[in-house]
Every structure is written in C-alpha cells, then in structure tokens.
C-alpha cells in the first residue's frame, strides 16, 4: 500500500443537544449493553483464548524456543563453530568447544547454553548456523520459572526439545 496523506477529521463544534450529553450518555450505555448482550448469548465469538487448555496456533515461521538438532546417529549436529554466538545481538549463547572422540566430527560443543532471559528471539542464530543445528521451530515461548538458573537452557535441554 502506497503511503498517502490521510485526512484526519478535526473535532467539530458540538450541537446543542450534544453539549447536554444526556442523549450521548444514553447512546453510550446502549453501545455497552449491546456488547454485553451479544457476548452473553454468543460466547463463542469472544476473542479470548483460554490459555492453558487452548493454545494459539503459531504461524509456521514463528520464532519460538530454540532446539538443537541431532545427526541420524543421535549426536548433536552442532560443531561449536560459534557462528550463532557471534551473530547473537543479546550475547545469550555460551559455547565451550571440545575435541570429539570421532575424528570425522572433530569438534563438538561440550557446553551450549542459551540464556532465555537474555534472548530476544531475533533468529539470527538460526540464520548464522552453517549446519542447520539450531532451530526455533518449537512453537513455544519461554515458560515461566521460579529461578533465573532454570531459564539458562543447557545443551541437554535444547537437544530434548
């Protein structure tokens, strides 16, 4: 849609009847009562989603909680290249690399922590990943926890998702 000039109506001079307000107040009461009656008799039209029982269906490109992918043999796909940590604007990814016992893998993440409290869910990590090891397609947003520590997701938690 092209950007255009939108004419905004200036407040006009009120008529004598309007300045009395009585009729306008009655009309206002009519509006609210109309909503009330409609919502009492057609509850299915209320937009509220009753959250824990009913969940909003997330669009396919929704960026939710991260998960780490596995290779067919079950080991993490991540090779600890630090690309996600480098791309992360919130500096929420902590990686410690280690020497893999499998020489074909060579490098693997000993630690891979995401601080969900810092994460801004921008998805840069997913874009940066050269191995398709990290995805944000769980459809979940961060659940509440009682301590900050529980919101630092470790590699095991990320692989489980």
């Amino acid at each position, binding site marked *: 849609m092209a950007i255009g000039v939108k004419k905004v109506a200036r407040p006009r001079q009120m008529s004598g009847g309007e300045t009395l307000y*009585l009729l306008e*107040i009655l009309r*206002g*009461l009519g*509006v*609210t*009562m109309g*909503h*009330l009656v409609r*919502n*009492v008799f057609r*509850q299915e039209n*209320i*937009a*509220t989603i*009753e959250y824990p029982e009913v969940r909003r269906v997330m669009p396919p490109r929704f960026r939710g909680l991260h998960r780490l992918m596995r290779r067919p043999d079950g080991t993490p796909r991540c090779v600890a290249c630090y690309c996600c940590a480098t791309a992360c604007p919130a500096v929420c990814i902590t990686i410690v690399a280690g020497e893999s016992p499998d020489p074909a893998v060579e490098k693997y993440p000993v630690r891979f922590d995401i601080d969900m409290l810092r994460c801004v869910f921008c998805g840069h990590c997913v874009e940066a990943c050269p191995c398709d090891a990290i995805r944000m397609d769980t459809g979940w947003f961060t659940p509440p926890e009682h301590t900050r520590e529980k919101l630092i997701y470790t590699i095991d938690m990320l692989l489980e998702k």
Partner: protein
Amino acid sequence: MSGLFDLVVSVVRVAVMLAFTLSLVPILVWAERKGAAYIQDRRGPNRAKILGLTLGGLFHPLADALKLLFKEDFIPDGAHRLFYQMAPMFALAPALMTFAVVPVGPPVVIAGREVALQVADLNVGILYIFAISGLAVYGVILAGWASNSKYPLLGGLRSSAQMISYEVSLGLSIIGLVMVFRSVRLSEIVASQGTLLWGIVPKWGVFVQPLGFLLFLVAVYAEANRTPFDLPEGESEIVAGFHTEYGSFKFSIFFMAEYVHMVVGSALIATLFFGGWQVPYLADSGFVLPGGAALGLPGPLVLLLRIGAFVGKLLFFAWLFIWVRWTIPRFRYDQVMRLGWKVLLPLSLANIFVTGLVLLLIGGGA
C-alpha cells in the same frame, strides 16, 4: 412484654438489613467483573472452582475475600498508626448506617402491632441521610492523610474537594422533592408515591421532579466515588489514590465500603424517585388499573411483590452504577469541579425555584 418485642424486632431488623447489604457486596463485585468482561468482549472470571463448579465465576469474590483475609496485615512505617487503622472503619460504617432509614416495604402487622420494614423510621430521615453520608468523606481523607504518602494524599485532597462540592447539589436537588411530598420522613415519601398523577401516572419522584432526579443521580455517583467521578482513586494517575498504602483486610473494607455506597445510593434513588417499594397500580387489595379493572390479590403476595419491587429497583440502579462505569471514562479534575459548581448547583437552585413557583400556582401541590 412490649419492650422485649420491640427489642427483638429491632435486632432482627438490624440483622436482616446488615446481612442484606453485605451479602449484596460479593454479588455486585461479581456482576461488576463479569459485566465489565462482557462489555469489553472478554470472558471475565471463570476459573475458581468448588466441586468442579464455576457458576460463571461466582466463587471469585469469595476467593478474593479469603485471600485478602489471609494476607499480612501491615502498617507502613511512616503512617499515622491510629488514623491509618481508623480510616477503613470510617469509610464503611456511615455507608452501612445510611441504610437504616430506607424502607424496604410497607409497614406490616405482626402479633397485632404495626412494624415498619426499616430499621428506624425517623421523622428527619433525609436529614439523617445527609448527616451520616457526609461523614463518609472522613474515611477517604483520613486514609489519604494517615498513609503519609504522596498518592494517597492527592487522592484524599481530591475526594474532599469533590465530596464537599457535590454534597451541596445533592442536598439542594432533594429540596424540590421534599417540597412536593411535604415530608422528610422516608416512609411518608414512599407512601405518597403510591398515589396517581392525573389518574394515570404513578406519582413517583422521577415524574414530579425529573430534573431533581438527574441532579441527584449525578451527585450520588460523585458521592460514591464511582466512575466517572472516581478521581480519589484514579488508578491511571495516582496509582490507587487514597488506598494506595492499604493492603489485606483493611483494603477489603475500603472495597466493601465502595459497594455498600453503591447499594445505599441505589436504595435512595429507588426510594426517593422510583416509589420505593411501590408497584404501580398495586393497592393493598390487589391491582387496580386506571380504567377501573381490578385484580384481587392476597395480602402476603402483595407484600412480597412490594418488597420484590424494592429489591428489583435497587438492583437495577446498582447495575446502572456498574454499567455507567464501563461506559463513561473518568472526568478530568477541572471538569468535575465545573460540573459541580457551574452546572449542578445553578440547576438545583433553579429547580427549587421552579418547583416552588409551580406549587404556588397550582395551590399548594397535589
């Protein structure tokens, strides 16, 4: 024997009135929350369950009350300890006391004695109401001052200015009514409203004093601190106004006081302007329509109808309080003052003048 009878009757009347008023509070809270939700296209409270029943959220006020009861009862460090604790009582007690003079039905005869269905049938009923409800402002001002905190103080100041301003119009708006019915005794005012005007229209206060009714309605809203006059609370400007520093049960007493004010205000509107317990065309013997047709009804049924009519009118006006709250936004402070002093006050004076003039012309009223 007669003394004992009077005592029992008095105690029962007080107990019933108190129970009636207080039991309306949770129902109104529920109606407020649920009504607000539906007006705003939400669902409202529907989670609290007892035995798997939610009853449309009716248990939420109960859960709230329990929660507030069990919360820590604290007093802020800088608060004036005595006034801080007195303020909630000052808020609730006058509201409850006002209800004493409201007749809920016609006098009934029990064991050969006439018993008025009101706690006290004072001959100065209306004056009593003004005297007692005038005290209500102390609760708010005390709370605001004793909290020793900026927002409560602002809320208290607002309420003092507002309540004093609107009390003037409140009083003046009823003068016309008193002139018409020639009594300040509420039971007489209600009884007078049972007659018909020109043989058709019930002689309700709203029909003989339409302007007086409007002025009284607005002033009552202002006195009850309800939207659009809830400036003392003003949550979007001064946090929670006078009760910012209150918590647990002290807060809940303020909360109850607000709803009792609503109940009393509704009862007064119904009594003064809508015939109280009167049902149009219903005489002691049954319905007597203007055309001459009549429907005989047994005495107890008439009594029940009349009490039911009073409760129904009361509930309607209580609902009107809620309904208005979710329709009209809060006034700005200068608007409140302008309305009070420059609109309501002249109009109520004019109303008295015109009423007097009319009464003079038609020869001392009907």
